[in-house]
């Protein structure tokens, strides 16, 4: 079976500075891969390049989603194709209520996929159901997107968007940053509910802690812009114990 997501020798730079030095990664349907690595190793860059952030220039390689190269697609087309990035720092959009935003995003994606748009009551019903599961106060849906949200609320809102948009590949960028343990559990539960045989995930994190709650099938160590080691979930524990020092040197 072909992997759902294939990253082949991906190279990218920003403002002329090379960050990704040939990333290779295959993720099968239903698999959860963790990418761990020291700060500044290029983990977040990988997530931005996958999602199509305009600041980055891809200088080589391919990214195939279900066999189709997504690198030529604009960010919104990639989203419609099923790629979702949970931001480390979700953006605030003043004046646009969360509900309006969710409706706009959901219907924009459906339109691009040639699916009928959903009615407002139908969207409201879906949002309410998912919000309830994540313990999100309906009041929050009337507030502007992420404006004045606490760190925990922002990550919950990201998870709510992810549940609602039903992506095929989820990229979680440092989802644990800025969360206390209770908030982390709520978010992890939300993510785990989304695990399914048809959906794959890339969980990017600096710490092993998150992986206690979102247990990965495969763990990769990322350093200096590429994957330097791959193993099972026990690799995360090893990293927790020994740190990244040996990989930083290995890669150097």
């Amino acid at each position: 079976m072909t992997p759902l997501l294939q990253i082949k020798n991906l190279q990218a730079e920003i403002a002329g500075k090379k960050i990704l030095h040939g990333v290779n990664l295959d993720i099968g349907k239903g698999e959860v891969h963790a990418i761990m690595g020291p700060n500044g190793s290029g983990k977040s860059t990988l997530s931005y390049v996958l999602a199509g952030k305009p600041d980055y220039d891809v200088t080589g390689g391919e990214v195939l989603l279900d066999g189709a190269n997504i690198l030529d697609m604009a960010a919104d087309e990639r989203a419609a194709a099923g790629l979702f990035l949970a931001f480390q720092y979700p953006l605030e959009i003043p004046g646009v209520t969360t509900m309006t935003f969710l409706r706009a995003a959901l219907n924009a994606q459906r339109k691009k996929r040639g699916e009928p748009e959903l009615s407002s009551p139908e969207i409201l019903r879906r949002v309410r159901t998912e919000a309830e599961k994540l313990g999100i106060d309906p009041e929050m849906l009337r507030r502007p997107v992420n404006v004045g949200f606490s760190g925990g609320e922002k990550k919950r809102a990201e998870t709510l968007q992810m549940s609602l948009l039903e992506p095929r590949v989820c990229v979680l960028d440092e989802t644990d940053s800025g969360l206390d343990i209770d908030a982390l559990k709520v978010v992890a539960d939300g993510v785990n509910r989304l695990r399914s045989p048809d959906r794959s995930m890339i969980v990017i994190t600096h710490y092993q802690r998150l992986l206690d709650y979102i247990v990965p099938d495969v763990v990769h160590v990322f350093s200096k812009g590429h994957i330097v080691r791959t193993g099972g979930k026990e690799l995360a524990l090893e990293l927790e114990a020994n740190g990244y020092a040996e990989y930083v040197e290995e890669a150097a």
Partner: protein
Amino acid sequence: MAAVQETVDHVRRIDVEQYKYGFETKIESEKAPKGLSEDIVRYISAKKEEPEWMLEWRLEAYRRWLNMREPNWARVDYPPIDYQDLYYYSAPKKRPTLNSLDEVDPEILKTYEKLGIPLQEQEVLAGVVGADGRPKVAVDAVFDSVSIATTYKEELAKAGVIFMPISEALREYPDLVRKYLGSVVPSTDNFFATLNSAVFSDGSFVYVPEGVRCPMELSTYFRINEEKTGQFERTLIIADKGAYVSYLEGCTAPKRDENQLHAAVVELVALDDAEIKYSTVQNWYPGDADGKGGIYNFVTKRGDCRGANAKIAWTQVETGSAITWKYPSCILRGDNSSGEFYSIAISSGRQQVDSGTKMIHLGKNTTSRIISKGISAGRSENTYRGLVSAHQKATGARNFTNCDSLLIGEECGAHTVPYIEARNASTQFEHEATTSKISEEMLFYCMQRGLSSEEAVALVVNGFVSDVLQQLPMEFAVEAQKLISISLEGSVG
């Protein structure tokens, strides 16, 4: 930078085709001879069958105007206007009997249909909601220099509300008009207002009697159709003690290569405990991408809170005109009176906007609020200019002002010029202004959720202006939102 680059590209591609109301109605019209003179002023007055005092009032204004200079302090730039090269009066030839739409030139009816303005009264029983569930709106349609039709007059009359063309009001209620006309914007006020006083041809007159809440929204729809014709309408709205009225105004014009002058005057009078809400969606033709053509919109709008607890709110959505020069203002004369100004001004192409408000606090415990959102794109210049002043006797005056500007692209300008003058200690004024751009990060975030770059920009801009949109009457807000999207289509994304 891709998303913004795309936006900039869109701005460069801005095309007159974006202006959806640019068509021309081919009808025969009756015009006064070109140019301006005492004879023209007399001609207009005679056409309107005005009382003698009105002619005198006009002539006095005209004579004064001859000695006035065009103001030059605004941040707008245009070649000198040849005031002798304009028509000051133009009316469709077949003059309709008022209230009988059957007699209106079918071409004109088609025009309004095309513009989406309902001139056919809905067949309904008394009540606020029409047969199709939409709220009823009474419309006065002004076509070039004359009012074509005013709807719902009878129903309004039952409530005691007078809503008619000002030319008709001058004949039917001369004393009422005489009492208030020029009492807020005197005929000596400024160059354009004085010109208007001399040559205004039509406009709306509203009187809401004591204690009456006007049973429906009133609206005037202004259409400039003729070539080389100036439009000088005059609107006068009086809310007597304890009365309430909400009034909407819309404007469009055909695409033409030459600039056309629009110099209107709007006067609002709110007596004790009265409230007037005045909303404008201004969509005059803005000119083409190179700044050719478009309306010069030089407008004087002022409201007088003449009584205690009176309230006047201006809401404006400005997307059209080559040049906008307007400062809808409130004179807060009555104790505890309040004034509000909510504005969205979008400029693109070569448009120039110099707009804002004046809040003059004279009475005790008067309050005012200003929310202004300026969006500049293309090669436009967008200036907020405002005055907030508290007189020495205006103890307890309060103002809150917020002016935000958004720049889209690298060839536009956004400027903020507020004057804040406090002349007593119990005044509390707060003013804040910011200028920023739509962040790349924000656009990327929206696009990652599936919105196209145009949709993302529209969403963010609508969020930026949401405080003001909320102030518009519901149906108008929907229209305004659409209009913003349309102007964004060409200019922002």
